[in-house]
């Protein structure tokens, strides 16, 4: 009997080879038609707009590269605006050498490249801004976004302490105005200071709330760049929101730190996109998670185009 048992164990060992369990299969995955991919969210307090353009690839294809010779153009309510310039494979709409008109929200010229790049005027709420990207090898792709009305932060009340180990614990209550039920919002608490450039610092910001609308909380431990943000729908907003947060900072640059509340108005497409990105990142590497599809608002392409409007207030 021992002979038979040994034989069985040997058999099992033999078939324990990894290759014996695997087989290459032919799954008829439809050939992927590469399309242009761009992520472009224009914000009204940005000092530089840059847009990267890529192409998509089949899942078994080689990696993709940036596309350097695409033509990108904007139009506002059907009126064409100027196209971008290319520098180092990135398409810039910049105030380099020119100036930014805060009232009109327009770049008027760019002396470095000898042209004027007129950007969309975001003053007109609910204006439709369109983007068009062309490159000969790929289908032309277009997307549009509505300009959200600009909200405002009317009041911030903050209370908090810094303990002996440089950990800040506090709460902030913020009152907003101009929240539109048809739009979507991101609220963020950010910190800027000397530590901003301290790549050896270790920071985290943790936000949570009893308010079910703000249940989601994120913990970041990025080097020197703490952010916490929440997304909500305008229709759900009532009056104000309160956040507790703890901030742990092992750097020595505590006294120069500044805290800000940012409120960013978003279109529905951008809101859905950001939510999907958050879920995708959370699920990344989790073998139990269901697959996540990142939505796009580009026709015949991938990526996201949107216009956001931001207000920022220190507390």
């Amino acid at each position, binding site marked *: 009997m021992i002979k038979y048992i040994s034989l069985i164990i040997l058999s099992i060992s033999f078939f324990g080879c990894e290759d014996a369990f*695997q087989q290459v299969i032919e799954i008829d995955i439809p050939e992927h038609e590469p399309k242009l991919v761009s992520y472009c969210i224009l914000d009204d307090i940005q000092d530089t707009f840059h847009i990267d353009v890529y192409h998509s690839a089949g899942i078994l294809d080689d990696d993709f590269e940036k596309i350097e010779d695409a033509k990108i153009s904007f139009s506002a309510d059907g009126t064409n605006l100027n196209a971008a310039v290319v520098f180092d494979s990135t398409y810039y709409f910049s105030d380099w050498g020119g100036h930014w008109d805060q009232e009109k929200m327009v770049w008027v010229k760019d002396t470095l490249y000898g042209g004027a790049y007129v950007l969309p005027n975001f003053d007109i709420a609910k204006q439709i801004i369109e983007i068009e990207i062309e490159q000969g090898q790929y289908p032309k792709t277009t997307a549009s976004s509505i300009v959200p009305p600009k909200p405002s932060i009317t009041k911030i009340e903050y209370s908090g302490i810094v303990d002996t180990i440089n950990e800040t614990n506090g709460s902030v209550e913020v009152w907003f105005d101009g929240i539109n039920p048809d739009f979507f919002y991101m609220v963020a608490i950010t910190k800027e200071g000397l530590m901003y450039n301290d790549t050896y610092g270790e920071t985290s910001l943790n936000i949570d709330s009893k308010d079910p609308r703000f249940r989601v909380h994120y913990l970041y431990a990025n080097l020197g760049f703490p952010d916490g943000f929440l997304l909500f729908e305008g229709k759900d907003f009532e009056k104000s929101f309160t956040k507790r947060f703890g901030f742990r900072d092992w750097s020595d640059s505590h006294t120069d730190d500044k805290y800000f509340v940012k409120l960013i108005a978003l279109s529905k497409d951008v809101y859905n996109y950001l939510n999907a990105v958050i879920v995708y990142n959370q699920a990344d590497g989790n073998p139990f998670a269901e697959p996540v599809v990142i939505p796009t608002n580009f026709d015949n392409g991938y990526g996201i185009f949107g216009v956001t409007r931001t207000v920022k207030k220190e507390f």
Partner: protein
Amino acid sequence: MQKKRTTLLFILCMVAISIGYAQKATISGYIEDQETGERLIAANVFDTKSGQGTVTNTFGFYSLTLPKDSVNLTFSYIGYQSKPLNLDLKKDIQLNIELSSDVLLQEVEIVADRVEKIEEETQMSKVDIPVELIKKIPTLFGEVDVLKTLQLLPGVQSGGEGQTGLYVRGGSPDQNLILLDGVPVYNVSHLLGIFSVFNADAIKTVTLTKGGFPARFGGRLSSVLEINMKDGHKEKIKGEGSIGIISSKFTLQGPIIKNKTTFLISARRTYWDLLARPLLKKAAMNEGVKVGGTLYFYDANAKITHKFNEKNRLFLSFYSGADIFKTDIEEDFGNNMYKTQFGVAWGNIVTAARWNHQFTPKLFLNTTMTYSNYDLKVHASETDTYQKDTLGNLATESFAAIYKSGIRDFSGKLDFDYIPSPNHYVRFGASATRHIYSPGALTVKVEDESFNIDTTLGTKPINSMEYDAYVEDDMKFGALKMNIGLHFSAFAPKDVVYTSLQPRIGLRYLLPSGYALKGSFTTMTQYLNLLASESFSLPSDLWVPSTKNIVPQQSWQSAIGVAKSFKDYELSVEGFYKQMKNVVSYLPGESFLTGLEVLEDGGEGNSWETKITQGDGEAYGAEVFLQKKKGKTTGWIGYTLSWNWRQFDKINGGKKFAFKYDRRHDLSIVVTHQFTKKISASATWVYGTGNAVSLPESKLPRAGTIINNNPNIYFSGDEYENPSEKNKFRMSNYHRLDLGIDFTKKKKRWSRTWSIGVYNAYFHKNPYFITRSDVRNNEGEVTKSVFKEVSILPFLPSISYSFKF
């Protein structure tokens, strides 16, 4: 005036019925195995003179009301010698019958438990599998497995290679009501679903109902699996056991008080951990670390049956089983000692106390009190002890996390059987169940010299009550038989009460040719949900209740079919259509690990509700089942052609998609043959369309910081994969041949059997999952990417030794 006439008519009818019954008398009692005392379920009682008959219920009780006259009764049960009895019926009598098994027949043949022919039954979509046949079927690692045998039936699919999950007519595993001696069992698998928790040595009967549910069943959408444990031998101490590659088991049964009180105990344990321990120790010594750990599962069944008198019996049943996996690693680096522990444990405890009482010859009551508990605990910890200063003082930093989930039930139930005449069998009853759900909580403890965290994340236990009541009548009108019933249920979680009325209809019409036409329509409501990953079958799957936000699952199913028995064969062909509402699924990106929340003081988290969505399901198809139940060769051929769909507004862009276990064709062939008294052999061959899977179709570059450089939102990694439409692709088709042979030898006082088997005899690489990998040339350069199917169970021989005394 009209009202008075109606009242008079009613009184006249009642008087006529009373006079009619006054001319009749009732024979009632129990039918038992003469040797063991085991009550025989669905044994037949037939009066050849009047042509009337009945069958015994789950407790072996029967009641037959006949005209006061001489009667020619026959008591029969397949595999047993029939017992004729002629008597002059003048008044109600209690008649307990003992049938002796046909010894010669049993030694060489496997026979079915049931005597009633398939065309005589009203019930459709129901299958009884003899436990002796289950024991003969070749299995993985030689472990006899009830659930894996059920997967070979038409309309029942397995979740994946080697898994015990049951997917019945398009349903999911949480939609199966699995009852062990009448008590629901929540987690029915060991070792990540490879083995089921049911020890065949302790089991008397196995019955699966896939549709046409009688009103006495409720609470699940897709199936009812009734498993009844043996009661215990009434006269002698009997034992049986086996020693296999991965486990051993032993069962002992016998009388405590002869002919009055019996017991049965049965236990099983795996011993991979015992075999691996010396190897682990040796490996650890080579690496300079201490490694400890264990991996095993165990089951224990126990039952005590006591007969107070002819009218009162008590049954106490107990089951406990658990899986334990633990690793313990200690690394010593001189000034630094590092200790890591990880463990997973999950298991069930099921207890039931049942009391049978016979009020009258026509009225039988079973009272059941049950307790069922399922717990999962995952534990991980790290401890770092180091020298913190030059004086040699030590400091310790530690991290520990414990994840727990589970469900506990306390239940009370009354089930009445009322048999007023051979043409009516009325069942009615009611039950109340208290569910306590613990849908996932994570406790985190972090300690070092400067700070201390002790936090619980997740959801607090949820209490709810479930109430059920039912009435059904099995009626007979010549060639037409009907089972008509109504099931009522109510569920009261926090802040909401759900109620549901569920009509049930089953019909059978016997054609002159002997073929039976059958039809059924049932509606079901389910207040429990199992949050399970489609990717893997895990003990981490969470049981959660319907709530104010998560509404109950509902279904309706209709089926039509034809059935006929030919000599030793039974044939049934059925078509079914099932619609399910409010089935649950995780949202994209979600799993049991994501989104745990901090519990505020006095607050009640509900994170799991935000991770799931509800939608619809649809399944339809046809099943053919040809079974040979008698003779030296037994077995069946089962074929299913089916379609199975799901639709969720928040998944797959709202588009309908194939359920992962949508299997267009599913074929099983099971054959056992008794060559001699000493040698029997068996073979099974299964074939199924490959599982539906989602695969990434394209990839996109990641976005950098996209808004204003702040907030800092970006994709992790260089690219993200764009998945296909949900379950758009198929794995390769599945097929497998298993073979087994038994050598039995009878000794003077005992018998022994050597069982040798082969799982996946021709080593077909059946896919378990698909992975993407790179193909490299001789220089190690990547030449292309391909998809690979990975199988986990190759050709696996097994051997076991079993004995019986």
